[in-house]
């Protein structure tokens, strides 16, 4: 069962990264998410939002929409933007067999996001935007049913 969805819209500006994290943390807490799993998903959200602002909009004008909800034991957060197409799920994985000195530092945010989530799903929307959904098992089984109704209260 799916909970109601909490939504935040912010300008694509790095100064709002803390606000995005705070919004997600508060919403996940209301859904009774496990704290460690919630923090994993929060970092992935932060990394992806930062990439959209810096590499997507390239620090220009734009908006990011953040939606948070849960489905059963899964906590989901979706980032939507109108920046040029970019699918982070197709970004190359850093070659961890390379000596450390030779690894690129770029791409660490996506690498961390993959590491911290169960799944990342990208979709190019009909109106030319990007939609990235990050998923993590984060709702304890005994509270998932209650959490799915949390938005109703």
């Amino acid at each position, binding site marked *: 069962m799916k909970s109601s969805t909490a939504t935040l819209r912010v300008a694509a500006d*790095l*100064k709002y*990264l*803390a606000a995005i*994290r705070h919004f997600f943390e508060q919403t996940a807490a209301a859904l009774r998410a496990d704290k460690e799993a919630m*923090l994993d998903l929060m*970092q992935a959200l*932060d*990394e992806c939002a*930062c990439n959209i*602002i*810096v590499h997507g909009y390239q620090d220009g004008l734009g908006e990011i929409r953040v939606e948070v909800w849960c489905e059963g034991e899964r906590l989901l957060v979706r980032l939507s933007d109108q920046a040029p197409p970019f699918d982070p799920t197709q970004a190359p994985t850093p070659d*961890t067999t390379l000596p*450390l*000195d*030779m*690894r*690129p*530092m*770029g791409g*660490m*945010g996506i*690498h*961390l996001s993959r*590491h911290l989530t169960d799944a990342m799903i990208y979709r190019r929307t009909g109106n030319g935007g990007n939609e990235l959904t990050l998923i993590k098992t984060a709702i304890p089984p005994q509270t998932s049913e209650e959490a799915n109704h949390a938005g109703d209260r």
Partner: protein
Amino acid sequence: MQVIVDKLHSHVPVTVLRIHGDLDGSNYQDLIAKAREVCAAGARHLLLDMSNMPYMSSAGLVALHSVAVLARGEEPSSPEHGWAAFHAVSRDSSGKQTRVKLLNPQPRVDRTLQTTGMREFFEVFTDLPTALDSFKAE
């Protein structure tokens, strides 16, 4: 995020940068700017106190990389150029560079350091006296 600077002395002068708050994409350049400021004033041994830094994103890794290069007296290059800037950074026999060390990274920050391989470059301490004592004259 705020950075408070303390100048302490052990075997050598050590500049402690105490980071308060989250280190993310919005403020990592503030940490680099502070490191640039103290290095321009002559600091060569830096201890980053992470006791009060609950969160660090990958942007913070770029800041750590840059601080280590600045402590060598050089200007950091673009992060896209990779970790090669560490090649010539003075290191001890364990492969860790010796001029910038970390104090008390919180569990989640430590995990980010480990996941990205960044922890291999830094000596990490949990108490200030031991950290200060570890800096030696080169």
